[in-house]
C-alpha cells in the first residue's frame, strides 16, 4: 500500500490520492500516467501486468491497484 502510494506520488506529484476512488474516471490519471504507472509497478513488484489487466477498474483507487498486484503475485 505504502509503496503503491509512493509510486503514485512519483507519477502524479503533489496530490493526496490515498482516498481517491475515481483516479481514472475523473481524469487524474491520463494515458501517459497509466503507462508510467504500469512500468513502475511491474518493476517494483516484479509482476507482468498484461493487457487483460489494463482496465480502468484496476486503476481507479489505491486499493484496486493493490488488489490487482496481489492477484498477479499469486
Amino acid at each position, binding site marked *: 500500500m505504502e509503496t503503491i502510494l509512493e509510486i503514485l506520488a512519483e507519477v502524479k506529484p503533489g496530490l493526496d490520492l490515498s482516498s481517491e476512488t475515481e483516479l*481514472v474516471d475523473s*481524469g487524474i*490519471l*491520463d*494515458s*501517459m500516467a*497509466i*503507462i*508510467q504507472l504500469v*512500468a*513502475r509497478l511491474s*518493476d517494483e513488484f516484479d509482476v507482468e501486468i498484461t*493487457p*487483460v489487466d*489494463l*482496465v*480502468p477498474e484496476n486503476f481507479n483507487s489505491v486499493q484496486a491497484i493493490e488488489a490487482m498486484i496481489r492477484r498477479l503475485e499469486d
Partner: protein
Amino acid sequence: MKTLTDHFDRIAALYPDKKAVSDEQETLTYGELAQQAKGIGTALARTGAKRRAVSLFLHKTPRCVAAMLGTSYSGNFYVVTDPDMPPERIRMTYETLDPAAVITEPALLETLRQTGFSGQVFLIDEVRCEAPDPALLQEVASQALSTDPLYCLFTSGSTGVPKGTVVTHANVIAYTDWFIHAFHIDSTCIFGSQTPFYFSMSVTDLFGALRTGAELVILPKKFFAFPIRLLQFMEQRQVNIIYWVPSALSIIANADLFRYVRPQTLKTVLFAGEVMPVKQLNYWRSFYPDALFANLFGPTETTDICTYYVVDRPFQETEALPIGRACEGCQVMVIGPDGKECAPGEEGELYVRGPFVAPGYYHAPDKTAAAFVQNPLQQAYPEIVYKTGDIVRTNDRGELIYCGRVDHQIKHFGYRIELGEIEAAAMAVDQVFAAACLFDAAGDRILLLYEGKVPEEDVQTALKDRLPGYMLPAMVKKLAAMPHNQNGKIDRSRLKAEYIG
C-alpha cells in the same frame, strides 16, 4: 459549390438519418449535425463578424464538429483550442488571432477566464439549439468565396512561438478530393478517429467522412491507455478505416493485443505524422493480410498530406518505408542547395506546389515569406510553393524516401548525420518498442532514449553492428515509458528539456 459547407449541405440532404459523428456518449445524424451547425452559424452571423477567427474552446466531441461547421456557415473561420493546453499558450494564440468569439461549455468558463479572453462567449449547448435563420445564412453564403479561410491551425514553431496556418475552403476541397479517390471513401466507411481536432491529421478523416456520408467515430482518448477496451469499442462500432499516428498503432503491436481482440471489420489502415516503424507495421500486416496499408506524408501547410505510399510489398525491419509519390492533384519537387532540381537518388529539400498549399501563417508575414516562396524552378510568373524543411531522395523505384528534417541533421565529427537513421537502427533491435535520438550540440553528444524489454548494453552492442562508429550514441538510456504529446506523437521537446536542458 464554393465552400466546404456547400459540399456538406449536399451530403446532409442525401443522408439525413445516417450517423455522421459519434463518441462514447453522443451520436449526431447528418440531419441533426446540419440543424445544429446552422443554429450555431446563425448566432455567430448575428455578431456581424466576417472572416474572423472563432475559437472553439471545446473537447473532442460531436458538438465540436457542429461548431466547426457552424463557424463556416457564419462566414468566419474556426480555431480549435485545446482546453488542456496551458492558459499562457492559449493567451499567445488569442493575441495573434484576436477571436471575434469563443464557443465553450460552462465547465470550461473558469479556464477560459484564466486566458484573459474578454470578448464574446457563446455556450455550445445554447447556440446549437438556436433556430437557424435561412435568410441570414443565405446572405452569408452568397458572399463566401472558396479562397476564404475555413480554419487556422497552430503548430509549435521551433522558437516556441506557435504559428497559425490559415487553410482555405479550396485547400480542403482539393485535398479531400484526392483522399476520397485514393482510398475509395464512401458512405459505407466508418472512421475510428484518434487525432485531436487541433491537429492537421484530423482534417483528413473528419472532412473525408463529411464529404461522403461516412461516419466518424471519436475514439475516447483514455482508451489508448486501456487498449483492449479501445479494440472492443472499435469492434462494437464496426470501425473499418483508421488514420492514426504510428505511436498509437505501436501501442497495439508492442503489447501484442490482437491475441485478445481483433476488430473484424477493419479494412484500411492509414498513418502519418511520424516515421512508421517496420516492425510494428509488420505486426499489423500479419493480422490484416488483406487490408490496405498506406504511409501518408505532409505538413499542416499543405492541408495535411502531399505524398503517399500504398504498402505493396514486404519490408525488412532494417528497411525504410517509402513516402511514395505526390498525391494526385498536387506536385512535389526535390531541390538541392543550388536551387535546382536534384538528380534521382540525390538528397534535397521537398517543395510542394498546387492547390493543397495553404496561403500562409496568420499575422506572421516574415514567417510566411520564409516558407511560402516563389517556385525556384520557374521565374516567368508568380507561383508560390511551400518549402517543407524535409530532406528526401528517390529510391531505385522512383519512390520518395524521407531522410529527416533540415533542422534534425547534425554535424558530428565532421559527418552529416540524420538522427532518424540512428532511431531506425534502434527500432530494428528486437524488443525495442520506441526510440528517440537527441543531439546535445553544446556537448557534441548523441543521446539515444528508448522504451523496451532489452538492457542498455544489448542495444549498444546491436547498434555497433548496424551503424558506423561516428553515428554511435554517447549515451543509451532505457526509459520506463516514452513520453507522448497531445497528438499522440513522441514528445521530443519534453525529452530535450529533460536530457539536454
